[in-house]
Every structure is written in structure tokens, then in C-alpha cells.
């Protein structure tokens, strides 16, 4: 995009300057609050209670993080989060790829019906209560598998993978068939390795979804041992909110300690995504495009 190689005109330069200034403002609006969260989480309870800082804390301390790590349930939640994200992503991608591969063959019998069934699921659903009743009757309430099994399938992802598989040259499949390979063999040994970019994209989207998901827990899980980080954080937030409303005039110390713990938990909950973010960014963008330009 070198359409502006020839720079000219005063008004054009003013435009560029104004544009840059506005975008820098935009960056500030995004970065300052995030920075403030990090710096606040590293502050002592006293500094937090006083407030009065934006960019730099008055009193650095690791006490919030110490409090979080002393709480053994947070460690357990971290394990639950990692496990459900890891297992969930692998099973989801494999399941969707398998169906997408089958549906990518136009000769498969019943394809029209299968596709119609899939498209309907994109726009209709039973909604919260009928789904809850189903999960309940399947015995998935308070089970780790409620994170995995209902999340196995997404027709949207099936469509993306289906279109990707279609772009693989047919000759590859043909020669394998001549050598006597079956469909499963071709799928596992040829198509999966070739489709790694598409599968990685879907894995990443799904991974972020799994990591950030808390409605599943809120709806189907009451057992604290199965709480992921997001739910743990939600509890801490709700707890501190009701507290701060009750104790107007009450003890300030309790409020600020909860606030510190809350901030430290926020940072810990977000850290994995932010840490992966620079590496994964380009996959996300290509995935957006993949999803947008369908047929």
C-alpha cells in the first residue's frame, strides 16, 4: 500500500498530523486503564485505599499476589481452566474437522439434509432453559464434561473447515485411494497435516472462548472444585461489590484487601491470553477473514 509515496500539499500533511494525534489518543484510552490495573494490583492495600495514582503506584507491594497464591482454590481453578481449555480445544477441532471432512465430499449421501440441519442450528436454539433441562437429564450437572461435550460442535467451524478441505487438490485423495487407503486414513494422514493453518485458527478462537467462558459454570456447576478462573473472579467481584455496598462507613481495610485480591486475580486470569497474544494475532486475523468470506 504505497499509494501515498508522493507526499504533497500542506493540507495533506495537516491531515496526517491530526490523524496521528487522534490515534495516539485512542491508544492512550486503551493502554492507560490497562496499565492502571497492573500498577494497582502491585500496590499495597493502604495505597489502594488512598487512591490518587494513575501511572505509578505510591507504594509497591506484592501482598495482593501473595494473598491470591495463598488461596489454594485459585490454584485449583487455574488447573480447571487450563484443563478445560486444553481438552476442549483438541476435541472440538478434531470433531469439527471430522464432520467437515465428511461434508466436504459432495457425493456423500444425505448431504443436503445434513447441511440443512447444520444451518438451522446456526439460527435456532432451544435457549437457556430447555438446554439446562437437557444437560440435567444427561447427568452433566456438576461434571467436568459439561465443559467439553456440549462444546464439541459448532456448525460455523464445520463450514470453515469444510471449505478449507475443498481447496485441497483432489488428485492427492485419488492417488491415495489407488494405493488402497480408506477415508479415515486419508483424513488423518493427508488432510489433517495439510489443514494445520485452518485448524490452528479455529483452535485459537475456540481456546479464547473456552478460557473466557463463564456462563457454562454459572449455569451448570455449583461444585467449587470445578470452578475455572473466570468463575472464581466473578465470585470475588460480586462478593466485593456487595461488601462495599454494605459497609459504607464500615471497615475500609476489608474493602481494599478484597480490591487488591480482585486486581491480582484479574491480572492472573488475563495473563495467559496476553502472553500468547503477539504470537497468535495473525492467526486471529486470518481466521476472521476465513469466517467472513465464506462461500
Amino acid at each position, binding site marked *: 500500500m504505497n499509494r501515498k509515496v508522493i507526499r504533497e500539499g500542506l493540507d495533506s500533511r495537516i491531515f496526517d498530523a491530526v490523524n496521528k494525534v487522534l490515534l495516539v489518543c485512542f491508544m492512550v484510552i486503551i493502554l492507560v486503564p490497562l496499565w492502571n490495573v497492573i500498577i494497582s494490583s502491585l500496590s499495597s492495600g493502604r495505597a489502594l485505599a488512598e487512591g490518587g495514582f494513575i501511572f505509578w503506584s505510591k507504594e509497591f507491594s506484592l501482598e495482593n499476589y501473595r494473598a491470591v497464591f495463598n488461596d489454594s482454590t485459585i490454584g485449583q481453578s487455574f488447573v480447571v481452566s487450563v484443563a478445560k481449555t486444553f481438552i476442549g480445544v483438541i476435541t472440538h477441532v478434531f470433531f469439527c474437522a*471430522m464432520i467437515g471432512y465428511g461434508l466436504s*465430499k459432495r457425493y456423500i449421501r444425505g448431504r443436503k439434509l445434513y447441511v440443512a440441519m447444520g444451518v438451522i442450528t446456526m*439460527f435456532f436454539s*432451544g435457549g437457556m432453559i430447555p438446554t439446562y433441562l437437557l444437560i440435567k437429564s444427561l447427568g452433566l450437572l456438576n461434571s467436568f464434561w459439561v465443559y467439553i461435550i456440549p462444546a*464439541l*460442535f459448532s456448525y460455523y467451524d464445520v463450514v470453515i473447515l469444510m471449505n478449507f478441505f475443498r481447496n485441497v487438490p*483432489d488428485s492427492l485423495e485419488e492417488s491415495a485411494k489407488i494405493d488402497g487407503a480408506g477415508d479415515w486414513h486419508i483424513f488423518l494422514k493427508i488432510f489433517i497435516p495439510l489443514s494445520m493453518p485452518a485448524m490452528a485458527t479455529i483452535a485459537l478462537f475456540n481456546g479464547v472462548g473456552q478460557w473466557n467462558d463463564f456462563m457454562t459454570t*454459572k449455569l451448570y456447576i455449583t461444585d467449587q472444585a470445578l470452578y475455572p478462573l473466570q468463575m472464581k473472579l*466473578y465470585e470475588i467481584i460480586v462478593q466485593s461489590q456487595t461488601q462495599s455496598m454494605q459497609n459504607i462507613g464500615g471497615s475500609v481495610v476489608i474493602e481494599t484487601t478484597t480490591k487488591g485480591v480482585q486486581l491480582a486475580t484479574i491480572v492472573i486470569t488475563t495473563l495467559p491470553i496476553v502472553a500468547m497474544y503477539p504470537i497468535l494475532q495473525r492467526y486471529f486475523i486470518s481466521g*476472521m477473514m476465513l469466517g467472513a468470506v465464506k462461500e
Partner: protein
Amino acid sequence: MNKTSASATSASIPPAIPPSAKKPMGQRIKEFVTDYKRQWEIQSMVLPGIIFMIIFCYIPIYGLTIAFKNYTVIDTLSTAPWVGLDNFRIILSDEYFWDAVVNTLGISFLKLGVGFIIPIILAIMIYELNMGRFKKFVQTISYLPHFLSWIVLGGMLITWFSTSGLFNELLLNLGLISKPSNILLDAGKYWWIATLSDIWKEAGWGTILYLAIMAKIDPTYYEAARIDGAGRLRQIWNITLPNMKAIISLNLILTVSGLLGSNLDQTLVLMNSQNREKAEVINSYVYRMGMTQGDFSYATAVGLGVSIVSVILLLMANKVTSKLNDNQSVL
């Protein structure tokens, strides 16, 4: 392309299925069964998906019938007595439901009015940047908030808005207020909090599609315009925007179809006892009636009503977009 692969699989499968309407039913079923058996290996890949869809998508759709029943905890789906449209009649006279409708529409229209334009402006601004490095940096940072969950962002908002938090600190330093107050407890401001926090989270992410479309605009248009003496703003107005018209209208219409499905996660985190009357949206109302008060039939009826309206909006949206895209349906 596919014909060759089909004939490679097995020579006897006809590459194109002939119009089957003329054949007798028995023969068609027979053919299907033979083909299915021959294709069992590839069918075995699709079958788990079909079973999944029947269990996890179609059984809940059937479960919607409890909206027309009086379902209590001791009932099962089949034993609950039918009550016809009673639940829907109660909805219409339920003032809490109408409060939720007003809030949902209010927040949705604010999000639509403000939140829809900002990504477009932002995308144009990023597109007009000519420094590669800075451009990359701006994009990277602007996508970042999208990856925070609503729980995380809700927690952040609660600390930012608290009396000793960032927001009050900034306003105090700028001299705009004299005394800190917790904005989240102010019901009158909730709609704006919901809208602006949503924009903060998603505006950068919303630019991706627009930027992709803009990258495809032929640069010679701009050259020609420059030779004709068009300034930068004029180029944006007469070249960039017209080229994005299709995607903008498509996006707008799809947003309209989701008007009633306001963000449940956001509401659950940001709603408190002080701002409830302005924060309750339809989705959170369904959650409260169904999951915490156990009124399954009533909550399902509300959910079903909303789904029906949403599907109608979607179908209308599809109709309008297909007109805009030379009668090619986007769905």
C-alpha cells in the same frame, strides 16, 4: 473437480444424482441404503455430528414446548399439563418484562448508534496511516481488549469506577468534579456505561473486516483523484466510503437482527442492586426467572418470544442484504 473424485471413490456412483422425483419411493430408499453402505467409512465421520445435533440442538428446540406448558420441578417434559398461550398472556402484563425490553432496546440502540460508526472511522484512520510500524502497533493494541472476558473487564470497570479508582482520579485531576462518587451505582448512567465499555472492548476488533475490504481498493483511484486535485478528506468521502458501502450495510443489517440479544455476561457482571432497574435486559431476566426463581415455563416463553422476533429480524435482514448484493443471499 468433484466429479473426478467421486468416480475415483467408486465407479458406480453417478456423478450427479438424477432428479429422483420420477422414481418410486422403494427404489429410492434401496439406492440410498446401497450407497450409504458403500460410503460407510465417510458416513461414519459425519454420523457423530448428526447425533450431536439431534441431542444438543434439536432436543432443546423440542424442549421449547414447555413454554406452552405448566412445568414444575416435579414434572417431566411429557407429564407437564398444557396451558396454551397462558404464559405469553402473563408476559404481556408483566411490568418487569417490559422494563427489560425497554433497557434492552435502549442499550442496543445506543450501541448501534455510537458503536457502529466508531469502527468505521477508526478503520479509515488506520488505513490513512503511512508509517508501517506505527500502523502495526495501533492495530495490535486496538485488538487487545477484545480478548478480555466480560468478567475481567467487569472487574476492571468496577475498580476504575470505584471512589478511589482511575475514573474519579482523572475527573478530579481535570477539575471536572469536586467529589468522587461511584458511577456504577448510578442507575441513570448505566446505559452509557454498558455502551461505552462495549465500544472500548470491541471497536478495534471491528476494524479488521473494514481494513481487509479497504486493502482491496484499487490504488489508481486515489492517484486519479489526486491528479484532479482532491484532498484527503474528499478522497475518503468519494473513494474509500463508496467502496465500503456493501460491507457497511451488510454489517448494519446483521447488527439489527441481533438487537434483542444484549450481552448477558456484561449485564451479569455490571448489574447490582442499585442499578438493576436500568440494567436488567431480556436475557438476564430470562436467567433470573428461570435459573434463580425456577419458573422454567415462563422463562422459556420469554426466550421463545425473543427468538421469534430475532429470526424475523434476521430474515428481513437477509432479504434486504440480498437486494444489496445483486440478489445473492448472504446466509
